């Protein structure tokens, strides 16, 4: 390792200016407006009249260096090497020379890149590690994303939805992403309590912090075994104890599955940001294509498209018609799991005599 260069610390990331196309540097903070040319192409026009064209393609987020190299080559050819990623993990080719746009689009299409995601459409699915990398995953993330986006791809590349529809997937209730505020989102959930490996707990875990980790106080010390006990009827399978103490595995293939939540958003337009709410508490894991999950997502999406007004996000639509109507017209079953009994349950009780039959 003696041939290693000298390490530096606390230098932080490279300054972004190094990576900005000249037209952006010149018109920084002076953009006037933008126009959507198609699902995958938009142009931003500066006060100076200068333009920059963005061509957006989908990405599975897991990218091999080979793909990064290929994109780099394309960027060299059409974008003077300038490329960026979006906050939803799409790839954006930044074209300063308008005459190169058509060539770029053609080459991307030839190479089977999926252009789109701009405007009132479904963009990429924010997601997490899943079985590819996380010990906590109750379902896979990339697999679910692939299964869903294959089904919904036309809404990325072409068809419009009433407003932007943001999908997300999290492989466990830690929700590394924005599942809790997405239009339609999936989250991996458990349905059974962790197992207690007494022997390993003794060695691996700190009893007080394990006991303290449980939000429902289901865990108590088991001094005899130098381990812990779980009051089963109090456990709501959050896995927080497992995060703190690895000797309490919670994975249970037969009972792990996917919950669907809907109606969240983060933008402030029209209505305030909203949390997603539970639509379906559990669907079994059925890899590689999770057909029951994709069917449910499509059903919800179709009902939204049929019912929403222009510019109305999923959550805005549901709140306008009322959740009772949402269950009615989607045909989804309203179960005891939908009734909140967590920290702020009170605020969800219908404290009014008004609802729709």
């Amino acid at each position, binding site marked *: 390792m003696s041939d290693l260069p000298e390490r530096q610390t606390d230098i932080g990331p490279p300054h972004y200016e190094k990576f900005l196309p000249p037209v952006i540097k010149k018109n920084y903070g002076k953009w006037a407006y*933008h126009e959507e040319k198609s699902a995958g192409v938009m142009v931003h026009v500066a006060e100076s009249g200068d333009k920059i064209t963005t061509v957006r393609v989908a990405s*599975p987020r897991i990218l*091999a*260096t080979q793909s*990064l190299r290929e994109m780099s080559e394309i960027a060299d050819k059409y974008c003077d090497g300038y490329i960026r990623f*979006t*906050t939803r993990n799409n790839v954006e080719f930044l074209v300063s020379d308008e005459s190169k746009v058509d060539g770029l689009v053609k080459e991307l299409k030839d190479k089977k890149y999926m252009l789109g995601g701009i405007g009132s459409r479904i963009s990429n699915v924010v997601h997490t590690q899943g079985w590819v990398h996380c010990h906590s995953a109750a379902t896979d993330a990339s697999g679910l994303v692939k299964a869903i986006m294959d089904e919904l791809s036309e809404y990325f590349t072409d068809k419009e939805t009433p407003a932007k529809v943001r999908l997300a997937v999290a492989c466990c209730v830690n929700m590394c992403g924005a599942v*809790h505020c997405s239009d339609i989102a999936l989250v991996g959930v458990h349905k059974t309590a962790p197992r207690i490996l007494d022997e390993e707990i003794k060695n691996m875990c700190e009893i007080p912090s394990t006991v303290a980790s449980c939000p429902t106080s289901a865990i108590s010390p088991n001094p005899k075994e130098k381990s812990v006990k779980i009051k089963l009827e109090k456990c709501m399978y959050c896995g927080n104890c497992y995060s703190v103490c690895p000797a309490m595995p919670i994975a249970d293939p037969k009972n792990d599955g996917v919950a669907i939540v809907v109606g969240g958003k983060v933008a402030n337009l029209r209505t305030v940001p909203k949390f997603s709410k539970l639509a379906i508490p559990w669907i079994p894991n059925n890899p590689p294509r999770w057909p029951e999950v994709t069917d449910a997502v499509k059903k919800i999406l179709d009902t939204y498209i049929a019912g929403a007004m222009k*510019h109305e996000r999923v959550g805005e639509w549901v709140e306008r018609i009322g959740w009772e109507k949402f269950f009615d017209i989607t045909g989804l079953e309203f179960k005891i799991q939908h009734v909140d009994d967590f920290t702020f349950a009170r605020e969800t009780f219908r404290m009014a005599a008004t609802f729709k039959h």
Partner: protein
Amino acid sequence: MAKKYDTPMLDELKKGAFPSFITEIEKATETADYAKDLLGLLERSFNEKKTHWKHGGIVGVRGYGGGVIGRYSDIPDEFPGVAHFHTVRVNQPSGFFYTSDALREICDIWEKYGSGLTNMHGSTGDLVLLGTNTESLEPIFAELSSRGWDLGGSGSAMRTPSCCVGQARCEWANIDTMAITNEITQHYQDEMHRPMFPYKFKFKVAGCACDCIASIARADMSIIGTWKGDIQIDQKEVANYAKGGMDIQAEIIDMCPTQCMGYDGKAISINNEHCNRCMHCIAKMTKALKPGKERGATILLGSKAPIVTGALLSWVIVPFMKMEPPFEELKDLIDRIWEWWDEHGKNRERVGELIERLGFPTFLKGVDLEPHPAMVTEPRRDPFFFWSEEDIEK
């Protein structure tokens, strides 16, 4: 290249319109062996419907407390290639801008010392290098840092800040999101690399209330650009939108949440005193409407995922702050908040949860912020409030 394992389940996911992560993993088998065993392990997970990763052990680079997530397989004998499979969180450049050269630089290093797989990007914003072994960590860090790259955050530390594209390519950016993000990142390198907080602390910066970085949902501090003063109207462009077929009454006026807009078939009028700056009208009529002229940010605090006591969205703690480099007012506020959190926070308690536990008024006093009605959607409803000594007649 010959397959090391049979992966019928995964092969199914190579079909279909959306780019396939399986294809990506297969590509990565060309430069290193990790990906081969990853495919085998993953096929196993798909079959058994369970993960085969264990809790992360503590691994990292010298002098840093974070930036690497340790990961080990629970069946290392069967898939020795991914017995270790740590991720390296490389701090992305603000705004996720790259040049092809920069990308290739990363690729070179990563093909040499790691799996060749990346996440572009992780949910927090890092450029995630996905999968390597413990021995490679120091070399990777030396290669990266010597070329001007550094690691992001993990553990109970400041996490890698991120932002929307902002003024680089957006007409609505009220603040320089990339400059702010870069400044915070650079200013607090120590807080990022050496975990010493009660728990994680995230920053996200959005140029306007569209919040294209989802800051309000997943940043302990959300910085969102906004303005004061009247929305600028170009009535000629209004007429163009009408001509273009937009139903201005239905799509704009009726959807304004504060009902502060009017349209007489020709011109739009706005009662700006009642505008809450939601961005709807501006976003839908970008050529005709522009934010007011005095620019700054609203600072919000506290969002996080639902675990353990329910999700939080960030809420307003400073209604309007000017945002000029070197952003001293912001940094001063951050320092006060961290100090208060440090003093009162329990282990694994996010700042939002701490405020909930001790009370928002206690926080306001603790960090010396004046109460303001913009901080709440409504005043308290119960009659149970505290008074201080100076409020009492003896």
